[in-house]
Structure formats: structure tokens, C-alpha cells
């Protein structure tokens, strides 16, 4: 047994736990930020009565959404800087990600291959990528309000991974020895990251829709600092679109690999079935969004069902379902 491998794998675990601790700080900061937003909204409402100036970002012209002021920030006119808590949350997320990526890299070096050869490694790398996508997306749109969701999800997934899925470093079985492991699985993880982001946006969209249906709601006041339902709907769609394209690629890359490894490109293996189901669900989401009467809350629900299927595919199918993709290492 190689001592270096063991040592590196141990360091990787230590870094993972450190990253989790920092994620928790980030999560708390984001949560405090939400609380602070509630306070701000209440204060602002007391200060000036018509707090909500119309911030229409999307107008519907005969069913075609025309976006206006795309560059407008989505932080609800709070000057773009966010609260102190939000900034702390973002800084902590960046720090946690650095530790997290270091853990991933060490694991990869320890195993001398891509660090996604089993369930534990897949979760470790997957959560890092989700967080990375969350951070990168900020350059495109201010979606910092998803920080609570993303850091929370990452903590839970990392927790499950370290407690339930941990396995020592092992070499790959021959069936996984292929460059398709790098392509197929990486794209699948990236797609999952966008789906996660889309799910967070869909939840926010649903809450906004719920609130907009009521005249004045005293609950969840911080939601007033978030983009309105229509804007969130558009954002959900655009994030999920990227996810869908990546997932389509995952599906096809998987089929090509399956042809190389198992002699057939499609065989309704359990994992194949669930990848297909997820693809169909998100295809359904895109269609729902284009169907009159379905854009908005209904399509958001579909987006959430899709993400539930993604999580199911990752957890239950990997561990409990018998199939050719039984590489969990458990």
C-alpha cells in the first residue's frame, strides 16, 4: 500500500471537513442576510409608503417576452453591494470552495485519476462544481439570494457523502477506464449544477407567485428584495436551458460510451432509464413554459419535479437499484 496515497486521501478528508465548516458559516451569513432583508423592507415600508416602484423587467407582447433593462441588477435596487452578511456569505463561500477544490484535487492525486470514480468522489466533485457554477453565475446575474439554498444543499450533500458514502481510494474497474469517464461524468455533474441552481430559482419563483397572489403578506418579507415572479421565471428558464443542453450531451456521451464498453448504445439500464426520465421531464418543462397557461408556477413545479428526479437518480438509483452503473463503491 502506498503511504502517499493514504496520506493524501486523509488530507483530502480533513480539507473536506474544513470546507464544510466554512460552508456552514456561509450558510449562516446568507440566512442572516435574509433576515436583515426582512428588517430593511419593514424599515423602508415605514419610511416611505410606496416602496415598490415598478421594476418591470419583462413585458409580454403578444406572448413574446421582451426583456427590458436586462443589465438591471436583480438585487431589488439595493445598490448592488448587498448587506454585510451577504458579502461575508459570499466571501466564506469562496473560501470554502478553495478548501473544497483542494480536497477534490488531493483526492484525484491520491487516486491518480479523475476524482469521480465512485459515489463519494462524485458527491465531493459534484458539490464543488455546484458551488463553482453558483459563484460564476454571479458574473452574469446577481443571484446571491440563492446562497442560502446552494450552501445548504452543499452542506447536506457533503454530509451524506462523508458519512454514508466514504470509501478509501481504489483503482477503477476496467469498465470505467476510458476518457469518456472524464467527459460523460463531468458534463453530467455540470448539468446537475445548473439544475440545482434552476431548482433554487424555481422555489423563489413559486414563493413570489404565492406572495403576489396576496395583497400584503407579512411573512417572508425578504422576498420583496428578490426579483419578481416574472423575472425569476425567466432566470429559471435560462439556467435550466443550459442544464438541459448539458444533460442532452450527457445522454449522448453516455450512449457512445455504453456502445464502447457494453456493446450497445442503449439498453434501458436503470441509470439510463433515469437519465432519460430526467431529460424528458426537463423537455417537458421547456414545453410547459411555451404552453399557454403553464408558464410561471406550473412550469416551476415541473422544474422542481425534474430536480427531485436528479437527486433520486444520484442517491437512490446509485445505491439501491441494480444495474450496470453500480459503481458506487459501497
Amino acid at each position, binding site marked *: 500500500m502506498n503511504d502517499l496515497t493514504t496520506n493524501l486521501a486523509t488530507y483530502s478528508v480533513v480539507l473536506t471537513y474544513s470546507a464544510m465548516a466554512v460552508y456552514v458559516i456561509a450558510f449562516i451569513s446568507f440566512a442572516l442576510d435574509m433576515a436583515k432583508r426582512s428588517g430593511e423592507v419593514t424599515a423602508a415600508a415605514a419610511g416611505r409608503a410606496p416602496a415598490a416602484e415598478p421594476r418591470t423587467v419583462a413585458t409580454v407582447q403578444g*406572448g413574446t417576452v421582451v426583456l427590458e433593462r436586462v443589465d438591471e441588477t436583480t438585487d431589488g435596487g439595493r445598490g448592488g453591494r448587498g448587506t454585510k452578511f451577504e458579502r461575508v456569505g459570499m466571501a466564506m463561500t469562496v473560501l470554502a470552495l478553495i478548501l473544497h477544490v483542494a480536497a477534490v484535487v488531493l483526492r484525484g492525486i491520491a487516486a491518480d485519476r479523475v476524482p469521480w470514480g465512485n459515489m463519494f468522489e462524485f458527491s465531493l466533485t459534484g458539490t464543488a462544481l455546484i458551488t463553482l457554477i453558483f459563484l460564476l453565475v454571479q458574473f452574469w446575474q446577481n443571484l446571491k439570494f440563492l446562497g442560502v439554498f446552494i450552501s445548504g444543499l452543499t452542506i447536506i450533500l457533503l454530509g451524506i457523502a462523508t458519512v454514508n458514502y466514504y470509501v478509501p481510494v481504489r483503482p477503477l474497474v476496467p469498465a470505467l477506464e476510458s476518457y469518456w469517464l472524464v467527459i460523460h461524468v463531468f458534463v453530467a455533474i455540470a448539468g446537475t449544477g445548473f439544475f440545482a441552481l434552476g431548482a433554487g430559482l424555481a422555489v423563489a419563483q413559486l414563493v413570489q407567485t404565492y406572495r403576489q397572489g396576496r395583497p400584503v403578506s407579512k411573512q417572508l418579507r425578504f422576498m420583496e428584495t428578490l426579483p419578481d415572479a416574472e423575472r425569476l421565471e425567466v432566470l429559471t428558464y435560462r439556467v435550466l436551458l443550459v442544464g438541459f443542453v448539458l444533460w442532452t450531451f450527457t445522454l449522448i456521451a453516455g450512449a457512445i460510451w455504453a456502445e464502447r464498453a457494453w456493446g450497445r448504445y442503449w439498453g434501458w439500464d436503470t441509470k439510463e432509464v433515469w437519465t432519460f426520465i430526467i431529460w424528458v421531464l426537463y423537455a417537458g418543462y421547456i414545453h410547459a413554459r411555451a404552453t399557454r397557461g403553464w408558464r410561471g408556477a406550473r412550469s416551476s413545479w415541473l422544474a422542481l419535479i425534474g430536480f427531485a428526479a436528479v437527486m433520486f437518480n444520484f442517491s437512490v438509483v446509485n445505491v439501491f437499484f441494480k444495474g450496470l452503473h453500480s459503481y458506487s463503491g459501497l
Partner: protein
Amino acid sequence: MSPQSDRDTDTDAGRDTDAGRDADAGRDADTGRDTDTVSGGDPMRPSDHVDSAAPTGGDDAGDAGVTQPTLGFTGYVRFFWRQLTSMRTALFLLMLLALAAIPGSLVPQRTADPNGVVQYKADHPQLFPVLDTLQVFDTYTSVWFSAIYLLLFVSLIGCIVPRTRHHWQALRTRPPRTPARLGRLAGHRSVPVDATTVTGAASTATGANAATGANAATSTATGAPATSTTDAGGTTDAATGLPSVDHAITRAAVLLKRSGYRVERFGDSVSAERGYLRETGNLVFHTALVGVLVAVGLGGGFSYTGQRLLVEGQTFSNVLGSYDSFNPGRWFTQSDLQGYNLTLDKFTTTYEERNLDALGQPLDYTAEVTAREKGGQERTERLGVNAPLSVGGTNVYLLGNGYAMQVTVRDGDGNVAFKDVVPFLPEDSNYTSTGVIKVPDAKPSQLGMVGFFYPTASKLGSGAFASAYPDAQNPMLTLQVYRGDLGLDSGVPQSVYSLDTSGLEQIAGRQSKTASIELKPGQTQQLPDGTGSITFDGVKRYVSLDVHHDPSQAWVAGFAALAVLGLLTSLFVPRRRVWVKAVPRRGAEHGEYDLEYAGLARGEDPNLERAVADIARRHLSDLGVRIPA
């Protein structure tokens, strides 16, 4: 000001009410109203698509009001066809498809896991017949699953055919007229073209005025009021120094054309549209999906798969009789088999030897084979997992491996009754393998043997053997020997991997006086009662090969690639209209006018504003007009 009076003052007389509606509605909603004349080139959509014109009255699901006339037969057909091709039906069928695919992942499938089905039957004797009647064990070829995806594809074809026709016409249609008022459209901006924004203009104009009165007089005489005319093709108005309207619009048309827009000029304005590729991509995507389905459906008929177990040194010929099992497609004929020979020269497995957590885990399987195609040269190839061999129109996959026993059996008379290589099937990850040796030619009585093979034999506390490592480091073969009629002449087919011991007498093994026979390679042991002897000559590796021939594979891959390309263009190519229009300023003395820019999204287009701003910026800098702060 009413649109009517607005139009009256407009210099472009060719404008009609269509343009007015355009500006007011923000789009010319020709879809759904008049599908034959494609004036705007709007992509056609099912009636309940969000981009379709809203229903004028009642429910769009067939206007089931009381005033509805009774539907005739064709009326009903039309009605159901419209229902089938609607967005909502497509959505419903998609969701149903996702739902219907689930059972196949919960219950073993006959195609993927036939043994699992047998096991399920044993485990759930009551439930099994019910589920089997529902075709749950063949979910993906079941009547209900097929019905869903076939309906979905009929719905899809019903949607894309008229859309393709419509799009074909739209592709040959010019962009629509410029709306009368651009003010309400996306990204609208108006930039004055006068002395304040054109650097050269002020000085030139002043200079000209100061120099000669005659010049000024000419200027007034020739047509200061006629702002839209220019000095024969000149780029700037000689009198004012401003870029002429004609020039400005021409430049705008050139710029838009260069940016990939389809351009049409309407008087002092240019109407441009781009992104027809978006609808093309959408149609290509959906058509490619139909292509995938057809290729899978038809291609399966011409394909064949066969399995063959090949021991080191053996040669396999690609003829029907040479396969252990063979599954032809519906339209398979024997002539589809291209003749070739394949010899397994050597099979090696590399094992993990350092990592204690994974000791003995196979790292790589490599089969060295020699292929001889008909009339072709002999070539030596490496066949491995993830590295199939392409030979004679087939792909050969390495899907399994194991140990085969080389044994020689001499009967009671001392004659060689059996000399062959017998493949044993691995039972666990350390390759404890089982197999059967049948010696029907042995005299005086036929012999049958049930064997266990341990590649690395180690004795357990109980006295039984087990294999401690998958590699053949301490190989050992143990045999229970039976004698009697093997029943091979009864005509009932038998498996070569099992021995029916009923009616046989065990002569070596637990149920007899003599213990099981234990052999190491090269050893020979006498069988009890003078029934003969057995020699364990050695161990060889074997591989199980899957031979696939699937002519549709390239088609499926091609359609899938096409689908991805179509998807990308349909999702990320924006379809938009952009207008550039020169609006003369009322009472302008020196030919001043305003340039207006505006755009309109056709579908999802988050960057429209930026695109319009960009066009305006480039156009103005091209003209030498400063954008006022």
C-alpha cells in the same frame, strides 16, 4: 395624435394599416389568422403556444360554445388532430412518457437482466403473473409504453410538418414593413442628426453660409424642405454637411446585412430580421428525434448479435454455426455474415497488487487476437474493455472471461475417452469457478464430473477450499465423479454447464467412500473402481465475446448529433427584428433629422436591447454622428 394623422405627415406614402397594427400590437400577429400569406415570417406554433395569437373568444380547445355547429366526421378528425398536435397534449404525453419509464427501473427487465426476472418470479410468485400480464418485465417494448411514445411522435410530426411548410415560406419572405412608430418597441432610441452631433456639419454649414450668399440661396432654392432627397448619390448633403438620409439608411442596410440580418428598405427606413436559424434549428431538432426513433426501429431489424466463448488458442469463424447463441434481427439473412476468423492468442488480466483496500481488483483485461478477413491480411489486434475490435462489419466486445480446464480422461480400458478444454464459469470475484466434464465415450460406464476450480486455492478451517485471489497462483481443480447413463442419447437438450446427477452413482465425492479428486496442473489421479483416470493438463484463460452488427448505429449517432446542433441553434440563436428609421424634423432648415432604432424579440431574446444599442453605436460611428450624452 392618432396613428392616422401620424401617417399623413409621414413622407413614406407606401405605409399601410399593417404597419400601424404592427406598432400598436408590437408584432404582426399573422400566425393563426392567416397561415397562407406569410407576411411576417413568424414561426408557426400550435394554437396554445404562448407565442401564438391569443384565442379571440371562448376556450381555445375547440370553441365549445353553444353556437358551435355540429361537427361532421371530418370536423371531428380535424378536432382530434388539433388536440393531438397541441402543446398541451405534447406536454401531457411527455410527462406520461417519463412516468411510464419508471416501472422498468424498479423491476428487472427481460432484455437487460433475464436472470433477475426468473429470480423475481421465484421471490414474488403471486405478484409476478399480474405484472407479467401488464408487460412490466418488458416495459420498453410494452403496448402501453409504445403507445405513449408513438402518440408523442405522431403529435410531433403533426406539429413539425405544417411548421416546416410555414417556415419554408417564411424563409423566402422579405422582412415586414417598418412600424409607423418605433417608440414603444424594445431598445428604442432616437439620435438627432444635426449640428450638435455631427462635427463637420456646423463648420461646413457656417462656412458655406459665410462665404457666398449664392450658395445659401441655392441651398434654399433646391430644397431645404425636401430633407429626404440628396445630391445625386452623395454621402453628405452639400449644403448642410450632414449625412444624407439616403446615405444613412443605405449604410444602415449594409451594416445590418453584414451582421447577418435580412434587410428590406422601405423609404427612409430599413427593416431587418435575423435568426431564421432559430426555427430551422428547432425543426431540425425535432425531425432528428423522429430520425433517431426510425433508425432505432428499422435498424434493429437488420442487426444481429451473437455470443461466443473462446479459449486461448481457439479460433472463431463468423458463421452461424460457430456462435454459442445468436439473436438475429427481423430482416437478417445468413448472407449478412461476412466471413472472418478470429483467434484468441492470449488473454491477460492485470490486478491491483499494492492497494490493500482493493487487492486483487482487476485493473485491465487484454485479449490479443488475430483477425483474418476474407481476402484480407492477417492482423494482430488488442481487444479490451472499452476497446472493441472492428472486424468484418461487426464489432467484437470483450464482455467476460474465466478459466478453462485442459483435461484428459482415460477410461477403464485405458483408452483416451476425452481430451478437451472445458470452460468453467466464475462464481465470485476471486474466480472460484464451476464446470462439468461429461465423458460419454468412457467404457465400461459413462462418466460425469462436477468440478470446482480455485485459481489460488486456500484451505478454509472447515476443510473446504476457497479461492483467495483471482490470478492463477495456486490453481487447483476438485472433482466429484459420477458414473452411469448421462442421458445424452435421450434427445433432450442439455446444458454443457450442468449435470443431471439423478440416476448417476457418485464414485468420488462427499456421498461416496472416496473423497473428491484434487488435482494440480500436470497431475493425474486414478478414478475409483477401475473406471479410469483423469489428468489435469493445465489451465487456460477464455473470453466471452459479444459480436454485434448494427448498421443503424451510424444513423442513430448522426441523428443524435443533428439533434444537438438543432437544439443549440434553436435555444441560443436569437430571432429578432431591428429597424432603423430616419424621421425628418418638422421645420428643419438644414436637413436635420432623427435616426431611430428599435428592435423586437421573436421568442426568447435576452440580449435584444444590447443588440439594438450595438447596431445604433456602430451605425452612428460609421456615419460620423456623435451619440449625445
